[in-house]
C-alpha cells in the first residue's frame, strides 16, 4: 500500500509545527538518497518558486469618490494610462502599459524605461502616485477633470490580478538571423551568438505538478511577497506532458495560472518594473506555490531535476515572429543552467531571464511560512484542465491585411 495523505492531515501537522517542508531543490537529493516511498512518507510539502518577467499582470483598484463626483473615462497613474471602461472610480492598470508620450520604438530600439509595472512597484513601495482622471461629465458625475496624489493606503482596494502568470515552461530563444534582435526574451545577438531561457527549471511551480494534481482554483500561494490565490487557469492554458529525450525526463508545456491577491499585503521587493529594450515594459513577479505530497506520484514529479526537464529551442528571428511551428531541438535545464549549450554543432553561451537565486529565496520563504504555522494549504475548489483534457490553442482568424514593422 503506497503512501496516502490528505490536506487535512498535512494541515494538522502544520498547526502542530510538525510538518516536514522542503524546497523543490532540496527534495531532489532527498529522493535520490532515501528513495521515493520513504521521502513521500516523510515529506509533507514541497515549496516551489519563480521570479520572472510576467507581462500578463496588473492591478485593479478603486480610488474613492471626489466631491463633486467624477466618472473616470480616461485614467492615468504617473502618466501611464489605465483602463477606464469599468465603474466610475474603478480602474485596471496593466504591467505593460506605457505613457502616452513614450517614444516607443520610433528611435529603435526603444528603451521603455517606465510602464505600468513600474507604477505598481512604486504603489507597493508606499510612494505617492499621481492620479489623473478625465471625464465627459454626467448629471450624476459632473466633474470632468481631477489631478491628485494617492498612496496605496488611501486606495479602497488594490488587488493584483494577473491573467497569465507562472508559465509552466517556456521557449529557449535564439537568433538565427544576421542582425541583433530585441525581444521579450532579451537582446539576442545574430548567428546564434547567445541563447536565453526563462523559467526556474527544477524550482518552477507548474513544472513540478505538470498534471495539475494539486494546483487548482483556490490554491493559496506566495504572490509578490504576500498571500495570493490561484483564481483560474491562466489565458493560453494548454498543458501537455511529453516524454523527454532522457530516461524519465519530461517536456511539459503550456500550463498557466490566473492569480490574485491583496496588493496591500505585498512587497516592492517581489514586484518590480522591468524594461526590455526594443520590446516594452513589464513586471517581474514573485510566485511560490506549495505542493502537498499526497502520494508517491505527486512526489515523483515534484522531485524532477533540471536534468529531467526539457524546453524547446526556437528561432526568434523567423520561426517565432512568423508563427512557424519549427523547433531547433530540445535542451534540458541542466544544460541551459551550465552556461554553455550546443545547437547544430555550435557552442553557445546561455543565460536565464528568470532569477534562479530569487526563486530559491521565494521557495525558502514559503517553507518558513508553512513551518512556522503561518500558512496552511488549501484544497482546490475546482481542478484546472490537465494535459489529458487536450486543450489546444486556436490561432487568430486573419481576415484582413496589415502592415509589418
Amino acid at each position, binding site marked *: 500500500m503506497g503512501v496516502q495523505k490528505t490536506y487535512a492531515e498535512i494541515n494538522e501537522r502544520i498547526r502542530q509545527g510538525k510538518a516536514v517542508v522542503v524546497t523543490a531543490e532540496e527534495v531532489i537529493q532527498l529522493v535520490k538518497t532515501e528513495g521515493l516511498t520513504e521521502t513521500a512518507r516523510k515529506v509533507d510539502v514541497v515549496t516551489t518558486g519563480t521570479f520572472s518577467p510576467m507581462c500578463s499582470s496588473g492591478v485593479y483598484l478603486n480610488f474613492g469618490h471626489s466631491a463633486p463626483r467624477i466618472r473616470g473615462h480616461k485614467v492615468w497613474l504617473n502618466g501611464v494610462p489605465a483602463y477606464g471602461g469599468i465603474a466610475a472610480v474603478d480602474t485596471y492598470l496593466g504591467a505593460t502599459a506605457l505613457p502616452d508620450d513614450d517614444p516607443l520604438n520610433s528611435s529603435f530600439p526603444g528603451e521603455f524605461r517606465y510602464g505600468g509595472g513600474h507604477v505598481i512597484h512604486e504603489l507597493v513601495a508606499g510612494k505617492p502616485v499621481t492620479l489623473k482622471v478625465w471625464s465627459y461629465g454626467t448629471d450624476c458625475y459632473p466633474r470632468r477633470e481631477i489631478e491628485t496624489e494617492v498612496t496605496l493606503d488611501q486606495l479602497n482596494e488594490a488587488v493584483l490580478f494577473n491573467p497569465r502568470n507562472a508559465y509552466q515552461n517556456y521557449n529557449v530563444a535564439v537568433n538565427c538571423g544576421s542582425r541583433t534582435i530585441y525581444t521579450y526574451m532579451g*537582446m539576442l545577438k545574430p548567428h546564434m551568438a547567445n541563447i536565453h531561457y526563462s523559467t526556474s527549471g527544477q524550482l518552477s511551480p507548474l513544472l513540478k505538478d505538470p498534471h495539475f494534481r494539486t494546483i487548482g482554483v483556490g490554491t493559496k500561494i506566495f504572490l509578490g511577497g504576500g498571500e495570493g490565490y490561484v483564481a483560474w487557469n491562466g489565458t493560453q492554458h494548454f498543458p501537455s506532458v511529453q516524454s523527454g529525450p532522457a530516461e524519465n525526463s519530461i517536456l511539459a508545456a503550456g500550463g498557466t495560472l490566473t492569480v490574485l491577491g491583496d496588493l496591500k499585503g505585498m512587497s516592492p521587493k517581489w514586484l518590480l518594473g522591468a524594461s526590455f529594450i526594443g520590446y516594452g515594459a513589464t513586471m517581474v513577479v514573485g510566485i511560490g506555490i506549495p505542493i502537498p505530497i499526497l502520494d508517491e506520484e505527486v512526489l515523483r514529479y515534484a522531485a524532477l531535476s533540471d536534468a529531467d526537464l526539457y524546453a524547446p529551442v526556437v528561432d526568434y528571428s523567423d520561426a517565432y515572429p512568423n508563427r512557424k511551428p519549427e523547433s531547433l531541438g530540445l535542451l534540458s535545464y541542466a544544460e541551459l543552467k551550465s552556461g554553455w549549450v550546443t545547437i547544430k554543432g555550435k557552442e553557445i553561451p546561455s543565460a536565464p531571464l528568470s532569477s534562479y537565486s530569487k526563486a530559491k529565496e521565494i521557495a525558502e520563504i514559503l517553507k518558513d511560512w508553512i513551518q512556522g504555522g503561518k500558512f496552511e494549504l488549501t484544497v482546490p475548489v475546482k481542478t484546472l484542465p490537465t494535459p489529458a483534457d487536450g486543450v489546444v490553442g486556436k490561432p487568430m482568424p486573419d481576415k484582413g491585411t496589415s502592415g509589418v514593422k
Partner: protein
Amino acid sequence: MKSKKIVLRFPATSADQPLIYYLVKDYDLVVNIIKANINPHKEGTLIMELSGANYEQGIEYIRSCGVQVQPLTEEIVRNHDRCISCGACTAVCPSGALYIERPEMNVVFDGEQCIVCQLCTRACPVRAMEARF
C-alpha cells in the same frame, strides 16, 4: 606588461591636440582605443587600454596637457539593490565581466574585465547596470 584601462577627459582647449599620437611616438606606448567622443572645441572623453615601459611618463604628459586621467573600473556601476541576479546580461556581455556563479546562480560583476561597451546597461531589465562618466 599588463595594460591598464583608463578614461581620459579632455577640456575643450585640448580636444584638437593629437595627444594619442605623441603617446605612441614619444613614449612608445601601446594604445587600444575602446571608445571616444572627441569634438573640436568641446569637452570630450576617451576610453582606452594603455601599456608600455614609459606608462607613468606618458600619463604625466597628458595630464600636463590638462587632460584628466582616471582608471576605468569605476565607470560601469552595478547597483546591487536593484540587481535581481536574473542573468539577462551575462550572455550579452562580450568580455566575461558579467557572469553567473554556480551553483548559487548569482550574477557577479568583475570590473577588471569590463570594456565599457555598455551592452549590459541596455540588456538589464531592471536598470541595475549604470554607466557613469
